[in-house]
Structure formats: structure tokens, C-alpha cells
């Protein structure tokens, strides 16, 4: 698929200029209330974290265990999504607060932040949905585009997919090691090993905290705290997997060939971000819990604009798409997740060309 289909070069440039104007306007309007937003979010997240962990110490009582686990799950979701992901995107760098800054942030998950910033901010956001360049297209284990050749081991895809969902934080952590590129000889073992060691160190500290220290602190209630943390991490994994897979793979989303991004103009880059990203409809709380990745299109057009602004940008982007006759892929969580899961299942078998959007 090439994204030259929708717009002429001149149209793409004009489209890009309109988006640039939105970006500049929002950037110029950032101020005190935005700063207050992220600081409040961080306080809420830390409060939930403390409250959840405290309740888990009383985990012998089932309601306390349930409430504690729920609070900790939400805290971990907020920490990874609305706070961590977005801070590391440099969305809040404009505040120049070194404590809320992309260069200093470390998040509560197995993946070391510097590796994440490379694999995600650079590789994924620059080469979004370009088969062979954006490793989020299947994470090197799933066939997510009909443009990827089918191999017999793709038959096991439904199983790998379920494992990836449950163990998502470890899948993300191993992302930047790029095993298949090492096997292809495009990357050295030494480089991969250095990354693995960093991941090992980080995972070690995470494991120590959630599965050893906090449970030990609870003394006789070791198991309640241990199981609460296990469930919270699992819930966060499932949620993150769901939101992230819905960002680029629901029906109607485009994937691209490497050739189509050579000498790509800024306007075409915008266009590709639009065509490769999908939004999820929902209420305010849902948007926050998704880290505003429910506004995946806006996030991909403007990855470093603060997430609290995506909601107000969305109708403007949608209107622009209408004006230029471009698709704007949005739908309910059920629709987006359903069609994404269908794609995983369908592409475990050969073929699947019909999944590519039909051009009018």
C-alpha cells in the first residue's frame, strides 16, 4: 500500500501545513493549567499506589484484597500510560521541570526507559506501520500485515498473541533487543547482550519490589500481597496490550512498504500517521486510563503535545480529514478490539489480502 493514493503532493503539503498550524497553536497555549493537570495526575497515581499497597496488607479480608488490587492495578495503568508513556514522549518537557522530564523519567515496568525511547519514540513513531521498519507491526512474533510473508509457525499465532497479552511488559521490554535482526546478522550479539543485561537489571528490581519486598513486609500475609501484585501487573499488561493493539490494527488501518517512505515529505509523513492509526471512542475516564492513546491518531500526528489536549484537537483533525476526503478511523472498543483480534487470527493463515483497506 502506498499513501500517494489519497492526496497529490501539493495537497499533502497543504494538509501538513494545516496540521503544523494546529501544533503551533496548541504549543503556544500551554500553560499553568496543563502543568497542574500532569502534577495532579501524578499525585493521584501515587496516592492510588500507596492506598492500594496499604489495603493489600489487610488482604486477608476479601474486600480489602479486592479494593487494594483494583487500586494498585489502576495506579500501574496510570503510571505506565497517562504518565510514563507521555512524559517519555517529551510531552511535558516544555515545563522544564527536571522531575517530569523525558530525559530523567524511569517507569514502573520491565522495559528500561532509554530502550523504550529508542524503539518506541524513534522507530515506531517515525516509521509507523511500515512493514519491516516499525517493529510494533507484530513485535517480531506476530504476522500483523498481509504484506508480511506467511510462515508455518504463524499457525501458532493465536497462542503467541494470548501469551503476549498476559506478559505484555516483558514483550515490550525485549522489543529493543531485536532478536530477529540479530539472527539475520543485522545487529551484533554484543549489542543485544548489553540490552538484555539492562533489561535483566530492571526486571530484577521490579520483581524484587513487587514479589519479594512488599510481600515480606506483610509478614504472615505474604501471599495476599504477592497475589495482589501479580494480579495488578497482569491487569495492567492486558489493558496496555488491548489499548496498544487497537491503536494500529483494527480493520481499515493501513500498513506501508519501506519503498513508500523513501524521501517522504512532512505532509506525507502526517498522512501516513493518520492512515496507520485508529482511535477508540469512550468517556473521559476511559481516555485517561488509556493514556489518551484512545486518541491514537492525534498522538501519532503530534507525539510530543501533552495528552490532555488530544481531546480538543480530535474534532479539528477529523474536520480536516473530511475536508481532504481522508478516512478517520474511530470506533468503539468492541469494534476496534474485535477487528484487531480477527486480524491476528486471520493472518495466522496464509493470504489475508482482503484485510488491506479497499481504495475507492
Amino acid at each position, binding site marked *: 500500500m502506498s499513501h500517494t493514493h489519497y492526496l497529490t503532493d501539493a495537497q499533502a503539503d497543504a494538509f501538513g501545513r494545516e496540521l503544523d498550524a494546529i501544533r503551533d497553536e496548541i*504549543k503556544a497555549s500551554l*500553560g499553568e493549567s496543563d502543568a497542574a493537570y500532569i502534577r495532579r495526575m501524578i499525585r493521584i497515581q*501515587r496516592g492510588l499506589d500507596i492506598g492500594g499497597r496499604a489495603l493489600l496488607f489487610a488482604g486477608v479480608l476479601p474486600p480489602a484484597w479486592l479494593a487494594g488490587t483494583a487500586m494498585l492495578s489502576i495506579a500501574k495503568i496510570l503510571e505506565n500510560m497517562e504518565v510514563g508513556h507521555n512524559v517519555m*514522549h517529551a510531552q511535558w518537557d516544555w515545563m522544564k521541570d527536571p*522531575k517530569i522530564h523525558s530525559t530523567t523519567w*524511569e517507569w514502573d515496568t520491565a522495559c528500561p526507559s532509554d530502550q523504550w525511547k529508542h524503539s518506541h*519514540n524513534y522507530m515506531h513513531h517515525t516509521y509507523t506501520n511500515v512493514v519491516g521498519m516499525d517493529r510494533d507491526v507484530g513485535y517480531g512474533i506476530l504476522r500483523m500485515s498481509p504484506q508480511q510473508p506467511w510462515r508455518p509457525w504463524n499457525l501458532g499465532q493465536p497462542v503467541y498473541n494470548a501469551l503476549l497479552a498476559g506478559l505484555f511488559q516483558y514483550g515490550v521490554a525485549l522489543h529493543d533487543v531485536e532478536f530477529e535482526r540479530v539472527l539475520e546478522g543485522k545487529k551484533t550479539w554484543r549489542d543485544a547482550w548489553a540490552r538484555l543485561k539492562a533489561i535483566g537489571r530492571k526486571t530484577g528490581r521490579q520483581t524484587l519490589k513487587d514479589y519479594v519486598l512488599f510481600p515480606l513486609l506483610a509478614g504472615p500475609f505474604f501471599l495476599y500481597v504477592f497475589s495482589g501484585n501479580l494480579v495488578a501487573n497482569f491487569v495492567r499488561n492486558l489493558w496496555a496490550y488491548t489499548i496498544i493493539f487497537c491503536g494500529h490494527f483494527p480493520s481499515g488501518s493501513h500498513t506501508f512498504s519501506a519503498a513508500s517512505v523513501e524521501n517522504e515529505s512532512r505532509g506525507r509523513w502526517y498522512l501516513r500517521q493518520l492512515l496507520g492509526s485508529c482511535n477508540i471512542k469512550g468517556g473521559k475516564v476511559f481516555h485517561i486510563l488509556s493514556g489518551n492513546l484512545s486518541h491514537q491518531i492525534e498522538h501519532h500526528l503530534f507525539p510530543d503535545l501533552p495528552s490532555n489536549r488530544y481531546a480538543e484537537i480530535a474534532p479539528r483533525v477529523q474536520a480536516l480529514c473530511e475536508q481532504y476526503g481522508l478516512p478517520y478511523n474511530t470506533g468503539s472498543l468492541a469494534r476496534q478490539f474485535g477487528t484487531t483480534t480477527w486480524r491476528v487470527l486471520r493472518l495466522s493463515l496464509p493470504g489475508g489480502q482482503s484485510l488491506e483497506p479497499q481504495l475507492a
Partner: protein
Amino acid sequence: MADDRLPAATLNSARWLQRAAGALTWPLNPSDYLGALFADTAGGNAVVERIGHPTPDAVTLTLRVPRGFPRHRAGQFVRLGVDIDGVRHSRCYSIASAPERDDGCIEITAKAIAGGRVSAHLNELLRVGARLQIDAPAGDFVLPEWLPERLLFITAGSGITPVMGMLRSLDARGTVPEVTLVHAAPDAASMIYGDELAAFAARHPQVTLHRVYTRAQGRFDVSQLDAVCEGWAGCETWACGPDALLQQLEDHWQQAGIGARLHTERFRPRVPQAGDATAARVQFLRSARVVDGRGDQPVLDLAELNGLSPAHGCRMGICHGCTATLKSGCVRDLRNGKTFDEEGDLVQICVCAPIGDVEIDL
């Protein structure tokens, strides 16, 4: 400071506890959680205790510093981080209080600059109880360990602040040597610390104070040196004020062959001239490389053209993989013309081009 007096065992267990708490809050610090629970410490680590206006266009702030804040040397400054409209701006302010002050506070005085972002905020909008971020004191505009016999201070406007810190320190230590102080301001009403200086001179007969009111008397310059301080060449001299004055003094001391006896402090950052293809020069500090370029070339390109290979990603300003710290000078974001000129600004070198002389920590 207080730590020295604790027994080793207590210290050890305190350290052990700290590490255990750190493992529980990893990847954050315990203090990050305490901040979330008990107080909104987001604005910074220092609290404004008192606000005074010594003159109509200056503000004196008494700041409560965090426990364990390093003691400054008289004459040093702190970098102050001030949140304005959600953005933290950093500016340097000399500490006007003596290091001997022991109530956990320091004092700074900021003069309102026309069109100045931070100084106007401090003067007009700051309230008691507000939080500011301060970093450890720095600077080598200080008194030496061994005091010379005769000291000369020449200051103008807000340039009195570091010298005030020195004088208060000498006073607190009870070792005031022979001092001549020349302090200039437009008139008596706008002279910062004028009354305190007069009282200081009155208490110490070995101190000679010359208050210069420039509106009536004209500017102070080197031609008046002999009149205010006979044998000035034999004095160790500290000067702080506008660039023109300091430049003149430096030339004068240099010509007299005693350049090393004059210590100066400048408040004013170099002013960049904006321009497109005008010549620019970038110093890459860590790799000790100086590169000549133009104001329309991204710093990343300049670095690569000259054999450096800074980390980067997209080269189009979206991934922030190329972010580097600006140490001095000014750069311009080629996408929107926005300029960055504060020390410590984090700039995307793939889309930022230099204006004039720039230092980058790379």
C-alpha cells in the same frame, strides 16, 4: 552538617533503611511519594518566607532552604527555578545574606528589569509561601580564605547583592578589615541596601562608603578612582555592575598591570543577534570541538559535518532522541522560529540552529 554528630551505628542503620525504602519505591524515591501524600512540593525545594521591597523596583526575598542545603561562600549565587505559566525558568541570583546566618534561610534581592520575565514575576506576583527551586550555590566571585589588608568594592544597581553577602559575612565574623565601598544608583530612593550600608560604615570606622547618585552626579568612572580610594592599586578589588562599568575597570586594571587583583561578576547573559544564514559558532563542550557554521544549519548537521556523531533518531523533531543541554548562547527551532537561550535548556539539535556563539554539552 548535623550528620557529623551522629554515632556511626545510627548512621549505618539510617543508610540501610534509606536503601530498603528506595527498593520499595523503585524506580522513584521515597520522597516522591511523601511529596504526593503530604505537601505539594512540585514548585520546588525552597519556600518564600518573607517578601520586602527595599526600593520601588526591587524585591528582597527570604527563602527557607531545604535541610542539608550546602552552605555558600560569601559572594556566591544560586540558580533559582521559578514556575511561570507552567514553565520553569532558571535565573541566577547572588546570595545577599551571610553564610554565617543560621536560621535556615538565605536572602536574595532581584531588581525588576524592563520586560524581564523572571524579575517581574518575583517583584510583582510572588506570594509568601510560594515554592521555588534552588540548586547548590556556585560561583568563584568570593572572598579568599586569607583576607587581604585593604579591600575595595565597586558596585552599581543590583550589583551590590554579592558584595552585601561578603560585607555581612565580614561583620558576622567580626573581622572587618580596611574597606572602601563605592556603590552607585540613580538616586537615594532607588539605592538597594543604601541604609544598611550606611549603618555598617557608621559602626566600623575602618569602612569608607561612597554613595554615588548618578542622576545628580553622573556615572562613576575610573577617573574618580584616586579621589575615592587613594592607593586603589594596592587593594584587592571586587566589582559587580553593568557591563560598561566592568569593562572599563578591567581595562584600567589591566593597563596598570594588576589585572589579577580585580574580581568581577557579570549578571547579564550575552545578547544574541538573531539571523538566518549569518555566521555562527558552536562549541561542543564534552568533545572539546569548536565548529563554525551558519544560523540556518541544525546543530546536529554541523556536528556530523565535523566528524562528531551525537545520538539522534528521526532528524525531524518528533522523537527527542537528539536532545542536548544548552550551556550558553541561543539556538532557534527552525520549525517555528522559537528561540532557546537559558542555560540548561534542553534542545532538539536536529531542528535547532545556532544564533551567534553557542555552547552545547555534547
